């Protein structure tokens, strides 16, 4: 056997020894997960997450935390849970509507023992979509979606037309009115009920913005857009803490307090939580994260879902050591289960 062949045999062995020593010495013995999302949920999850038990499941872990991602990515979810060392009870993602039900993403959430929360966007760039839904022009597609959700079988949270009370989505003002939105919401809800998709928790998710800030920038109290107690199970409020234009850190009260008051004036017996939230990366982030968790306690909310994406501002926790530490502390100091309004069955 020639020298080169011997060397080719020896090299990986020597390398394995050297690398093994380094990895062991530095306690890096696990390969980070790169697994694609499973398409079939494991049997244990089947037992845990069947529709009839979903409310109990989520209430058992209150106050809960979740993560929101534009597209479900196992790596992003793993990175978030590993960094924050917290259980993710809800995995939130977004989808055009009417469109095909993203069962892969929902199944992935279930496999992680989390509730899938899908944000249905009725026409992100088309103001007519909401009107078509309200006027029953898209019933066939919606029925197909409802059938797919029913066939999925696991408990799922569905939010339709989130942040409708703001001015930035086509299903809100000035393109559509509260009357159209409420009509569309109720119609979608009814179609799901007709399809027998009883595994859906209906989450109505307005934005924290509640008043107009320029003559044409219309944000209104969420109460104007409320579809009614019979059509809503949960209420998720969207809002973020950042710096105002004076460079001052925003706090929980100034962002959420008014809208919470408006919501509670019309919605009774509903679980209220933050469906999309985050704290921008800046100097006061630790104080603001502490304030966020304090607000959850003070206002008796059921939990929060962190928006783990960098969009309008850098909300992502990944790589922010101080912010992650504050988040971990916030989660660990959640009190014992708070009294939550009983969800509608």
């Amino acid at each position, binding site marked *: 056997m*020639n020298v080169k062949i011997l060397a080719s045999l020896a090299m990986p062995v020597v390398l394995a020894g050297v690398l093994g020593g380094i990895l062991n010495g530095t306690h890096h013995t696990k390969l*980070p997960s*790169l697994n694609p999302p499973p398409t079939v949920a494991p049997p244990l999850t089947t037992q845990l997450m069947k529709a009839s038990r979903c409310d109990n499941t989520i209430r058992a872990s209150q106050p809960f935390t979740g993560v929101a991602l534009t597209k479900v990515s196992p790596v992003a979810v793993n990175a978030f849970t590993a960094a924050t060392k917290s259980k993710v009870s809800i995995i939130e993602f977004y989808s055009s509507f009417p469109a095909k039900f993203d069962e892969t993403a929902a199944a992935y959430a279930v496999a992680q023992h989390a509730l899938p929360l899908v944000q249905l966007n009725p026409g992100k760039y088309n103001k007519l979509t909401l009107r078509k839904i309200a006027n029953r022009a898209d019933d066939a597609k919606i029925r197909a979606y409802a059938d797919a959700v029913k066939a999925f079988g696991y408990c799922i949270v569905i939010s339709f037309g989130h942040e409708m009370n703001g001015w*930035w989505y086509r299903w809100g003002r000035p393109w559509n009115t509260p009357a159209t939105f409420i009509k569309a919401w109720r119609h979608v809800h009814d179609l799901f009920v007709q399809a027998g998709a009883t595994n859906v928790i209906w989450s109505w998710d307005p934005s924290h913005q509640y008043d107009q800030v320029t003559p044409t920038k219309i944000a209104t109290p969420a109460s104007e857009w409320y579809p009614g107690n019979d059509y809503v199970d949960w209420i998720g409020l969207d809002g973020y803490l950042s710096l105002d234009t004076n460079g001052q850190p925003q706090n929980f*009260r100034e962002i959420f307090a008014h809208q919470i008051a408006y919501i509670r004036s019309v919605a009774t017996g509903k679980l209220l939580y933050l469906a999309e939230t985050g704290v*921008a990366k800046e100097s006061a982030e630790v104080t603001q994260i502490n304030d966020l968790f304090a607000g959850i306690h003070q206002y008796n909310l059921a939990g929060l879902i962190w928006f783990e994406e*960098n969009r309008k501002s850098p909300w992502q926790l990944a790589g922010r050591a101080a912010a992650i530490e504050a988040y971990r502390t916030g989660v660990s100091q959640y009190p014992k289960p708070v009294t939550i309004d009983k969800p509608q069955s």
Partner: protein
Amino acid sequence: MNAWLERLQPLKARMAEAWAMWSILAAQATLTLPWMWRTGAYSDEALYLTVARQGWKALLGAAPNFPGLPVIYPPVAGFLDSIGGTIAARIPSLLFMLGATALVYHMGDRMFGRMSGVLAALLFAVCGIIVHLGAAATFDPMALFLLVLALHAAVRMRDGGIGWLVLCPLALAAANATKYATTAWDPLIIGTIVLYGWSKGRLQSLFLAVSVAVSTAMIDAAVLMLGGTNLAYGVVDSLIRRSPQAGLSSSALSVLAHALLMTGLIVLIALAGIWVSVVKRMPATATAFLCLLVLGAVLVPVDQARLHQITSLDENMGFGLPFAALAAGYALGAWRQWLGRQRHWGKIVATTAAVVTVITMLIVGRVERVQFRGPAAEVASSVWPVVGGHFVKHSMILDDGSSTVGEYYLPGIPPTAWRTFYGTPSDYTRRMVKGHCFSVVMIDASDANSFPHLRRILHNYGYQRLTTNSTVSKRVLIWSLPKSQVTLTASVKARQSQKPNPCG
């Protein structure tokens, strides 16, 4: 002393022999150098240098958003940037690209003869993508050099010592770590060891290939384990998460057409190399090796066409060019030799054809804009001081995609002050303009005609068009608002009354 000088003699002789290579390197440096100061930082450069400027913590935190390990290239560029600005940060890139060309020359010389080596290096060096990579402070030049070094080691492994066997996986793993996308070429390096070494001994070539593959995989895995989930996110984002759903920005045909224009000539000549090999009845492994080299060049265009993505096409096509240049060098060299044997004027005709090819490559490299070429340096030196000068503290800046570059040139402005819109400004953005939330608005002049509504709003709501010099005004339009009119919203009074931030 004399003994030492005597020992240098062979090296001096070899350097003198390689005068053609030195000429090519000089030509490459001449082509590249002007771009180093003729262009300002583009978005990728600005991002890497800005993060590097913020220190190790920021670099480690940026791992999920970087296309390569943040601790290899960015600290080097960041350090040079802190000393001599963008131009200094670009110097390593030129050196890496010159190194890559030298290696292409040596490989071509060793595998196919001196003339093929010269032609391969020449085609590689004058290609527009390579010229501009040498003037770009990004991960790519270093990764490309390491990839070519691994290929060189794979070639030398057949006849050289054990050192090449050790160097190959180290260089390959370093390339993979420097830019994750280079992993796509790992199988080609392994294939090179098998196919090029086949004639020297099948068993040996197979053992060497498996050894390099296993060793590289082990180092890659170790890097991944050391990097943890943050790094894994970046790797998956670079390699796996890209899908046709990520954004249907370009048709497959337009992606392929652009690729054909940028590198098509080299690839076509490289394809001719396969034909030459078949006609010359070369061993099947030699023909297969040439096929492998061509495959290296078409990997990226085909993949990008599949994904309908043209972003990063030019950057990543650079990694396939050394492979294609070698096959093209072989084709041209063989053709020149054949024509020389057929006709007494054959070599002159063949040489002229090669020169015409190189000139064509040069012209294409000049005419077709490389995606990652930065804006004219005058823009950087004229626009950003104007923007910085008119920015009002606690207000915002609206731009149509240049905020990353802005953050690099204007580090004093907080990152949260930038608001970027892509495509068409949303109604939300327009209303913020009306609300005087922005003290400065800047848009690319070439896109300005598509924003008549925004321009009308700017005009109607008191924004004033700033005068910039004629060169700059052709590219970037800037508006500003008198300081007294800028809305510094969410005043203390408003905060006390719990009102939301109007401009936030």
